[in-house]
């Protein structure tokens, strides 16, 4: 069995190591690996009996590779899944064994992934799990900077910092981050302005050309008149106080109170 595992993991490593791995082959290999590992009891071993260090390291390696694979394949669902599978190996099983070299890289990617989706709350939870000393590590530091800029609303700063990500693997998330920032800006302008110059809009949206602005206008149903962009104000339902209901309930309470012996 061990031989089989070894063989499979070697092949898997090789596949992932390629610049553009074969999606189908990789996934097949991973599943097979996991099944064998599960059968062997290597995958998430029980906590009742002593752990086999060798096995834990082996499983960790496989799962780390799986994360990298998912990034390379740009499969975000898979990425998220793999992250949560590998995490116990860092935090629970990992407490007793040597740290993995890739740990911070992978956790950093997870952080960036969360930022790109604007899941700030989860971002901080994850951050708390990482030791404080590791914050100076470039993989983590990068994320901290991005988050700070994001909070400040300094989108331009983000743009510049994102030009030099700490790892090639990060580029996937950086581009996603940019998109989500754009969306944020869009949402704000929508509410802040009634109309905008096309040129200003271009700068504001951090877009290369005016044509792109026009395209965006089309998709969002904005009108363009005389080189000006008019936002359709979405009808915002102000929540009204349900007067009648409140009155009715209060009278009801008073009645009940009177009934009390």
């Amino acid at each position, binding site marked *: 069995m061990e031989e089989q595992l070894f063989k499979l993991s070697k092949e898997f490593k090789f596949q992932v190591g390629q610049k553009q791995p074969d999606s189908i082959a990789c996934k097949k290999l991973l*599943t097979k690996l*996991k*099944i064998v590992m*599960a059968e062997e009891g290597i*995958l*998430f071993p*029980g*906590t*009742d*009996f*002593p*752990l086999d*260090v060798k096995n834990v390291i082996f499983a960790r390696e496989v799962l780390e590779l799986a994360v990298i694979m998912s990034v390379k394949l740009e499969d975000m*669902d898979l990425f*998220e*899944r*793999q992250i*949560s*599978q*590998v*995490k*116990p*190996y860092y*935090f*629970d*099983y990992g*407490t*007793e064994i040597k740290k993995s070299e890739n740990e911070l890289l992978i956790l950093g990617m997870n952080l960036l992934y969360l930022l790109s989706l604007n899941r700030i709350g989860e971002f901080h939870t994850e951050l708390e799990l990482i030791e404080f000393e590791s914050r100076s590590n470039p993989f983590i530091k990068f994320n901290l900077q991005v988050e700070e800029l994001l909070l400040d609303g300094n989108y331009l700063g983000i743009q510049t910092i994102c030009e030099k990500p700490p790892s090639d693997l990060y580029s996937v998330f950086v581009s996603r981050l940019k998109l989500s920032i754009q969306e944020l800006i869009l949402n704000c302008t929508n509410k802040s302005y009634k109309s905008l110059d096309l040129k200003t809009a271009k700068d504001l949206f951090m877009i290369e050309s005016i044509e792109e602005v026009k395209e965006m206008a089309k998709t969002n149903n904005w009108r363009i008149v005389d080189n000006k962009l008019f936002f359709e104000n979405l009808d915002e339902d102000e929540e009204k106080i349900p007067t009648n209901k409140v009155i009715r309930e209060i009278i009801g309470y008073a009645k009940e109170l009177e*009934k*009390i*012996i």
Partner: protein
Amino acid sequence: MSVVLSTASGIIALLDEPDNDLKTYALRKLDSLVDQFWAEISDSIGKIEALYEDEEFPSRTLAAIVASKVYYHLGFLDDSLLFALGAGQLFDVSQRDEFTRTLISKSFNDYIEKRNVITEEEHKLKLKKEEEEKNKTKTIFDDEEEDSELENMLIDSDEDSEQDEGLYEAKNERILIEKTEVEVIDPRLEKVINSVFRRCFLEKEFKEALGIAIEARRIDIIKEIIEMVDKTDEMLTYCLTIARKYIQSRWYRQEVLTVLLEIYESRPELDYINICDILLFLNDVERLSEILNELILEKSIESNLNACQIAFDLYENASQHFLNELVLLLPDPIPVNKPVEKDGIVAEYTPMEQKRLEYIKKMDQIKSILSGKTTINLHLQFLNRNNKTDLQNLIRLKEKTDSRHSLLTSMIVMSHGLISCGTTSDVFLRENLGWLANISNWAKFCSTASLGLIHKGHLDKAFTILEPYLPQGSGGSSPYSEGGSLYALGLINTKHGEEVTPFLLEALKNCQRNNIIQHGACLGIGLSSMAVGDMQTYEELRGVLYNDDAVAGEAAGIAMGLLMLGTGNSKAIQEMWNYAHQTEHEKIIRGVSVGMSLIMYGKEQEAEGLIEQLYSDKDSILRYGAMFTIAMAYAGTSNEKALRKLLHVAVSDVNDDVRRAAVIAIGFLLFKEPKQVPKTLSLLAKSYNNSVRFGAAMALGITCAGTANKDALELLEPLTKDLNNIVRQGALIATGMVLMQSNEKQEPKVSKIKEQFYEIVSDKYEHKMTKMGAILGAGLIDAGGRNVTISMQTTTGENDMTAIVGLAIFSQYWFWHPLTYFISLAFQPTALIGLNKDLNMPKFKVKSNAKPSLFAYPSPLVEKKKVEKKVETAVLSVTKKEQRRQEEKAEQKKINEDNSQMDSEEVDEKKIIEEEKEKEKEMEKEKEKEKEKEKEKEMEKEEKKEVKEQKENEEPEEEILENPTRITLDQRKYITFDVDTRYKPIKESAKFGIVMLLDTKPDEDEELIEIAFDTTEKKEEEKEPEPPEPFEYFSD
């Protein structure tokens, strides 16, 4: 190296893997971790559910059990159970963990609920079908008749029947549709339940299993359990009590009982007493009469005794209607002709004839028992023989009462009536003729009626006693005493009015519409022909009602209710309802609405219509009636729905009377669980509303009467010091009821409360309403010569209809004081009366395994009082405390048996009094000793020694009681029958009431107890206590 997992997210993530093996692996992991990480898993519960629903997924059950556990942790038991059922084998019933136990109890709850709904539905369907079947046969029958009569109609009728068939089919379809709508029990649930039953069997937890089976209406399981158990007897009795007490649905109860009956009858040794018990429940008169007849026909003494015991039990528990039917069904043996004397030889009966004679004698015996006359007579004997009335108490109260207050004087008379109820002792009245002469009007009515109370149950002498007062036709005495005497006649002959009812009806007709006499006569008729349901009498009473006289009409309304008690007669209800809306007299409306409630006695759900109708009326008196209707219809059932309604009305109705009635009605519903009542009423007793507080006091009194319940007393105590006079009155009466038959040893408050009664009556500034309460309370606490208690259930725990009705009408005393006497209907002699085969009382002993002082009669007040009389009255209040201290000390000395010495400290200025007292006490002691010596002589030598030893040491731990004896409620559990070697009770469980005794030495002579006065036979020979002389009245 061991590791603690901090998250299950890794494993949860595996669920998203495309491969099934991995998912299964993840689920298995989750199953072991779910107790720790359920919160985390619950986020992805959707995935797990999806896996469960995916029919191609191989480990669906695993997914189900994980989901079930997660939902269990989330507190969604419904979902949890659903998934657990889906988990099949993986949901292991034999596990003992929290999860499994919770789910099992949940599943039982669900199952029981569903079974109940389903069985009810099925039952309804069955009834419907039966009805349809009946209708169908009827129509066919009709058709046939028509056929034979008119052949021409043949074609038409054919068409008719076709139509009928079509209709029938349509109906059937409808039934089918309904059936599909009926909830169906998940077969998986059923499986789980069954496996739990199996487990119970394996672990021998039969009682638990039986309880569940009964609740879940699984008759098959009930049978199985009873067959399986070794101790069948125990199980059967257990099942019987459960079935009786806890099954609310009537038809289901009958079904269970039928099953039990089958089991009982299939056993080799027939347990007649239990069989008859069940038959009574099933209302199976025919079988009962057969069994009784068989038992009488059988030769053995044992079976004859059994028959008598059954008859006594029947009289106690069965309804009047049932008994009447039973007596009719019992064969009427042909009398044997006297053998003709031939040729101077005294002819003897042939053996056959002798047998027949014997049979006739026995049959008569049984019939007289069933008619109740024997029981009444025995109770009368008992009350008379064991009368321990302490009149001094009453005299004390009387002296403090201003005789100008007609209310209070009549209360004293009433109180006396209660104290001497059934004892036939009217010494007090005779000694106070002069004082009695002062009372007039309705007070006179009451005092005359009190004679009825004193001679209650003295059926045969009723007329003799009351003769001086009864209407004579020719003017005679005042209408008040005439009316009162008619009422008294009813009280004496309660429920046994075959002889007096015609007389009362006659009196009603001849009174020339004098409303006072009418009033008395109506009440009398109501009492004497209670629950008879005779339409002719009903019409007479209705006539009185329609006269629209307030005084007579009220009594007529109540009497109509009494007459139709528990019949649910819709015609009567309709007429009374209509009249309640016509008349303008509040008294009549009240009488009528109480009457209507009586008609609905015990009708439970059937009364709902009337309750609704009455309660939605805008007239508060009718709403008041609605509350009593609930009380009567659901008496003793603890029905939750009815209870909720009462509680709602008690706090929300706008009328105080209605609220009060609602609270009192709560007492009627809950009387079978007296311990629960104080809890239920504790809030109401603290209500701001006077009426609600009064009602709470009354309800406590009614339910906890004679129990000396600590919680009840605690609630009542502050009420006796309430700011409101009426509340104080109610609380005093209730306290009197609760403390009936208690002595200081049992409940130290007894003497305190008696003192409180006295103080209230003697307090010049106390309101007369409160005084009235104190006087009545004092009467109740010592009622019936201290030999009765108030109870709404018979000794076997059934509803005692007469008592319930009595208390219901008693609670109307608020509006009309003479109705107070109805409380006597609830008096239950706490006697143990042993009888031999000829229904005579032999000398017989039982042992009470408790200290004699625990259940002793309270010590009489007499001698102290006499001493006090000699001294100036002014000293009285000063010495009170001192006296109490002395009493205590004296009692201690009694125990220590050295009462000859006195502490010098105690000898103070009241030396003389004490000395006198001591002397008297010593005298008494000596007397007692003498008596005891006499007794001892009778006893055997060994016993003599024992007694002496006991006397020398401490108070004995047990007491030997002579037949017939008083045994209070609490004393029952101490009673054993092991002292008397000769007589054994035929029914082992019987420790009170009337017990048939088996004579183990039938050849020896029997020592019988002298009968104080024989009421049934030898009328002429026996001397009767003289009736009190008619007292004269100053006519105003």
